[in-house]
């Protein structure tokens, strides 16, 4: 009798370990690090409602190629964000312009990194270290300078550059594919698919999508494990701040806050209060929302005078998050990015929220 129970327990334990390892194998498919995650997370889990003090989510590893041996076929066609059908004749010299870096990550994930000829100053992937930075000028891109890189394909979601820049690139014979910037989980797979289409490589899209999906499933499972010690979903808000002179907003679903917060097991106070786009984070708004945890971009907090400066904003100190100094920050292109690295980004945030690893 005892032996059978022992065997059952042993098999169950083995199955759990195997499942865990499989999860590790899947979740590390798109990342460079080799530290096993699953075993570290759950034991560290604490009650998020009781944790205090600011934490920065660790920087997630660079995107690494997932698809190997991709076959591209030209001319390729893809329907862009305006509904127009674009024909791509060639894609030997490519630019991926996206403020959050997701398009770049997608291109790298598809194994096409060697075709990139330039980067935005937010693209810090080591694979692109030698490429010229084309967004040095802030708002307006210098069309001629971009053309000096002789790109034949530009992928953009127009979060960088103006419409005029893209029209001018087209008038110089460059193919521009405009993607829609939709900050939600569903859009990740859609974007991967569309980007692959632009290279005539639809079949490879699935490979990358599945890898990302698997990673996401594993991440969610891990996050569930980390949530174990927290009795209820903490109220949280994503705040956008820049400097100290009036740029301070509560972000809603339209800006990608909801999906992130919900997947982290947090209650989105913006959503429950009907904020869909953004709302000025003035004192009354903050107090009435009263988040227990605040998520914000690291650069934004820095520009606001660090956590101390951030907490000095009127109304912040009246919130639970303010009193507990529970500010979770993450790199700009990690917090609200919806791309192949989102699962890793979520995990990093979850660790910051649910563990005490400072």
């Amino acid at each position, binding site marked *: 009798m005892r032996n059978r129970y022992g065997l059952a327990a042993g098999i169950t334990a083995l199955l759990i370990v195997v499942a865990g390892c499989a999860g590790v194998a899947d979740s590390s498919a798109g990342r460079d690090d080799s530290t096993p995650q699953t075993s570290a997370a759950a034991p560290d889990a604490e009650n998020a409602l009781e944790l205090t003090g600011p934490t920065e989510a660790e920087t997630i590893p660079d995107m690494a190629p997932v698809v190997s041996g991709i076959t591209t076929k030209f001319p390729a066609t893809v329907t862009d964000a305006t509904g127009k059908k674009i024909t791509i004749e060639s894609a030997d010299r490519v630019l991926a312009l996206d403020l959050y870096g997701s398009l770049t990550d997608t291109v790298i994930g598809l194994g096409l990194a060697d075709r990139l000829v330039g980067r935005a100053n937010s693209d810090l992937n080591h694979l692109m270290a030698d490429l010229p930075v084309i967004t040095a000028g802030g708002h307006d891109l210098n069309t001629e300078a971009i053309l000096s890189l002789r790109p034949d394909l530009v992928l953009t979601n127009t979060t960088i550059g103006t*419409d005029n820049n893209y029209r*001018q690139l087209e008038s110089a014979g460059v193919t521009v594919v405009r993607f829609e910037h939709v900050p939600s989980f569903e859009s990740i797979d859609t974007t991967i698919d569309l980007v692959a289409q632009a290279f005539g490589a639809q079949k490879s899209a699935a490979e990358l999508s599945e890898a990302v999906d698997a990673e996401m499933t594993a991440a969610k499972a891990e996050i569930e494990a980390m949530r174990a010690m927290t009795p209820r979903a903490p109220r949280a808000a994503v705040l956008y701040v820049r400097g100290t002179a009036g740029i301070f907003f509560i972000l809603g679903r339209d800006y990608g806050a909801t999906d992130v917060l919900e997947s982290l097991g947090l209650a989105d106070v913006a959503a429950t209060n009907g904020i869909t786009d953004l709302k000025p984070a003035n004192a009354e708004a903050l107090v009435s929302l009263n988040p227990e945890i605040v998520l914000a971009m690291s650069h934004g907090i820095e520009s606001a005078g660090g956590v101390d400066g951030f907490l000095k904003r009127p109304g912040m100190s009246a919130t639970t998050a303010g009193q507990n100094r529970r500010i979770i920050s993450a790199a700009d292109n990690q917090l609200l990015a919806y791309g192949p690295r989102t699962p890793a980004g979520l995990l990093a945030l979850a660790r910051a929220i649910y563990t005490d690893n400072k």
Partner: protein
Amino acid sequence: MSSISRTTTAKPPPRSGRISEAGRPGAPKRVRVAVVTTGLVVAVIGVVLLSTGLGQFATTPGQVIGTINRVVFQGADPLGNQVDAVLWNIRFPRIALGLLAGAALAVAGTVMQGVFANPLAEPSIIGVNAGASVGATLVLVLGVAVTSPWLLPAAAFLGAIVVTVVVWAFARTGGKAAVLTLVLTGIAINAIASAGTSFLIFLGDTTAREQVIFWQLGTLSNATWDAVGVTLIVFVAGFIGCMAIRRPLDVLALGDASAAASGVSVERLRLLAILLACLLTGVAVAFGGIIAFVGLIVPHTIRLMVGPSHRYLVPLSALGGAVLLAAADIATRNLIAFSDLPIGIFTAIVGGPLFLVLLRRTLRGQGGMR
């Protein structure tokens, strides 16, 4: 022949009672005008040559000539060759717009200074810039600028005209719009328009705000041949209009009463001049954003060199404005790698010191302030 009597002055003209300052020394007017004209024409040619050859997409003069040869004389499609496409579709229209917008702004400034009989006048007084701001900001905040490349310029142009008309309408009392009334009304309406723009900015999202800021700093990066075409038409019409009123504009320097007594329809002239200034500035602002300073500095500088007669002032200001803006734009698009700087910065940096130098030289030549 006149029948003015010749019998009066038997004695030689008496010397004036006080020691007058030395008048402008040296060369007679015609020589000065010729020198300045030649200088400006050479400058325009020089700026064009320099401009066509300089850009962050490296080109050789041979390629520039080749493109012109192929597209203009052989009717080739610029898209057939990437160098042609970059030069013809991106660089050349920008240079052309710089020349035309600069000329338009300068002529508008000239006419404004004439019609207000004041060397400190410029088109922003009557609300052109504020009005264009409202129109442009509205389009940017509504996020509809994408729907057509004409929407933003049209809105800016319309805004400029509407606000100018409002200023004029409010300044008219009893059928007349005196200079002081125009200025004060302009100040009030400008403030209101400015408030409108600020409110719209507040309503907009971060992207819209950034776009508004950069629009207000001015840029020629939106140049297309279409834009150049429209600007050319408006500029030529405006220029002809301004030249047509060059003599009555001169007479306004005598003051409204004397001008009227000299047979000038002061009210109509003022309205026409303001309209012309509004159109010229409006088209420049529509495609280039707010480019300050050109309308104030260029006519002033040219006047210091060739005197206040509009017959020379208008065309030479046009040349001067063209040079200033086209030269400034060389800097904006070449100075910093991968950057396209706002042009308002450069018109000020170039125009300001130049004006100071000229002013000091003139004052020194006259032994101090008048």
